[in-house]
């Protein structure tokens, strides 16, 4: 399955933040969206999710996404927001169960089958023991896993993740990246944003470099993430160091 953005422009109050974005995402691939703060990453995500009005076409397997109902769309594209705390002390099961909303009738709560799907999604991520815990009292890493479990309960084809590694400690960042690779291995299409180009080198099939609302480079990380592109996006000089295993690391130059 593929998700195609054809000339997408979107913004707030008539002011366009992203202009004429064209991109193709495949299931089983990881696309990493890189760019400085305010470059339009979140705006682009909102446009894909239908949370913002946008011009241009979004196609899923050559079918217009605007022709789908909100629920049909939610069964294809799931959203993993940044870690947050809801205003009420929901249990982990409550939170994951909301992922089954696109499968429920508009006037009824989820049913038995939905609860089974929730258990499955939680088992897949190894958090089935957290079911009765208060979501607000979990650690950041656990909360991230709960939000991913909720998205998996939607059984989507594409997962849109808004900075899944921010707010996480060093170890959990890596575990999340590994998890993302596993999910892509199960034929899920993943689009994520990150502020750490190293993460793109680790897991991304493709990188899209977003700058001032335009994609300035798009392709394999080893090809796209050059010193020039990184300097243009972030305004700093970066050395790209290749480790003996072949993986690349970014080392920003610092002071004298």
């Amino acid at each position, binding site marked *: 399955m593929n998700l195609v953005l054809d000339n997408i422009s979107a913004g*707030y*109050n008539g002011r366009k933040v992203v202009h004429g974005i064209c991109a193709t995402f495949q299931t089983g691939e990881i696309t990493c969206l890189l760019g400085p703060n305010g470059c339009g990453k979140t705006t682009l995500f*909102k446009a894909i*999710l*239908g*949370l913002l009005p946008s011009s241009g076409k979004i196609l899923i397997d050559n079918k217009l996404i605007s022709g789908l*109902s*909100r*629920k049909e*769309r*939610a*069964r294809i*594209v*799931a*959203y993993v*927001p940044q870690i*947050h705390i*809801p*205003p*009420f*002390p*929901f*249990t982990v*099961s*409550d*939170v994951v169960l*909301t*992922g089954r*909303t*696109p499968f*429920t009738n*508009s*006037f*009824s*709560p*989820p049913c*038995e089958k939905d*609860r*089974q799907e*929730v*258990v499955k999604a939680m088992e897949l991520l190894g958090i089935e023991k957290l*079911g*009765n815990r*208060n979501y*607000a*009292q979990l650690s950041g890493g656990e909360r991230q896993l709960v939000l991913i479990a909720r998205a998996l309960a*939607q059984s989507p084809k594409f997962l849109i993740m808004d900075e899944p590694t921010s707010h996480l400690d060093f170890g959990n960042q890596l575990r999340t990246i590994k998890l993302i690779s596993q999910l892509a291995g199960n034929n899920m299409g993943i689009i994520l944003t990150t502020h750490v180009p190293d993460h793109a080198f680790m897991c991304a099939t493709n990188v899209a470099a977003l700058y001032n609302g335009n994609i300035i480079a798009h392709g394999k990380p080893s090809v796209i993430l050059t010193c020039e592109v990184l300097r243009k996006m972030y305004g700093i000089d970066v050395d790209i160091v290749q480790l003996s295993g072949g993986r690349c690391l970014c080392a920003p130059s610092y002071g004298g």
Partner: protein
Amino acid sequence: MHGVFKVELLYSCQLKDNMKNITDMILKMTLHSKTKTKQDSKGALVIVLAGAALIIMIFAALTTGRYPVSMTDIFDIISGRLHMGHKSTDGAADLVLFSVRMPRILAAIFVGAALSGSGACYQGIFRNPMVEPSLLGVTAGAALGAALGILFSASIAEIQAMSFIMGLTAVLITSGMSSVVNRKGDSTLAFILCGIITGTLFTAFLSLVKYTADPDSKLPAITYWLMGSLATVNMKDISVSGVLIIAGLIPLMFLRWRINVMAFGDEEARSLGVNTAAVRVVVIASSTLMTAAAVSISGMIGWIGLVIPHLARMIVGPSFPVLLPASVLMGAFFLLFVDTIARIAFPIEIPLGILTAIAGAPFFFFLLAYGKRGWI
């Protein structure tokens, strides 16, 4: 001696067994699968217990009061009414039961259920546990309507109608203003701020009406209305308000899962396939209808819409499919309990609004201090 003790022991064992069987049965009914969480089964149990407590409270309230009516009298009168030929033995008891106590009991149940249920819905939809039904100006509007009705010497039915209509008007004004203010999409904040504008404005108008009202007759009447009471309700008021309250409650019961999802914020709810704008309109309209219908027959009764949803949330958790029915039942029980106290405890009847505040304030403090809370 020995024998009696044995029998008693046997009896108490049987009772214990029976109780165990009943709780097992309830648990089995709710726990028919492994996937149900502890919280779900606890929630179902609490709902059953709250329903049972409400029924017991109804009978307690029927037998309580200045005129003595025993449980056997009640069953005699009811069975007398059921068998048309059979004439009731005690006409006075019949009158007390059906014309005095029953309307008040029903009113307490409807008003308590409406205020608590709409409070829970407002808290869910505005994602704020500190919100209560008066948020969007419905009570301020209802108060102004009632005050105007009293000022113009309207009948009780007309006063209720004016209070109901002004309550709805206030919320319509709030919604109208918030749709003008809200250009960016954070409609929740716009709603709350515009509710403050409407509330302040209507309260100022209310003060104006009080200022111009005759201080010997009209002003006390308005003041007493504002304190809240169920002393003057009759069956006709209740049938109208009851239908309106049920009409408001039905869509809320159907949408209770969507309200749950909306507690995670608009964008997440929309990405999960919820039509948030439609759900918000229906929930606000239904909750407002319930509150306006309740306030129009009871006057100002504060605290229930804030405290009872909190209590319910602490017992059954925040998941709305369970929280809403639990809030409704507990609100009905609480107001019926307080109103029964109001009828009998003091030589003169204390207005309900005063009692709910006096009972509610320390109760809320204890909830905050010792209850398990998740939002701080």
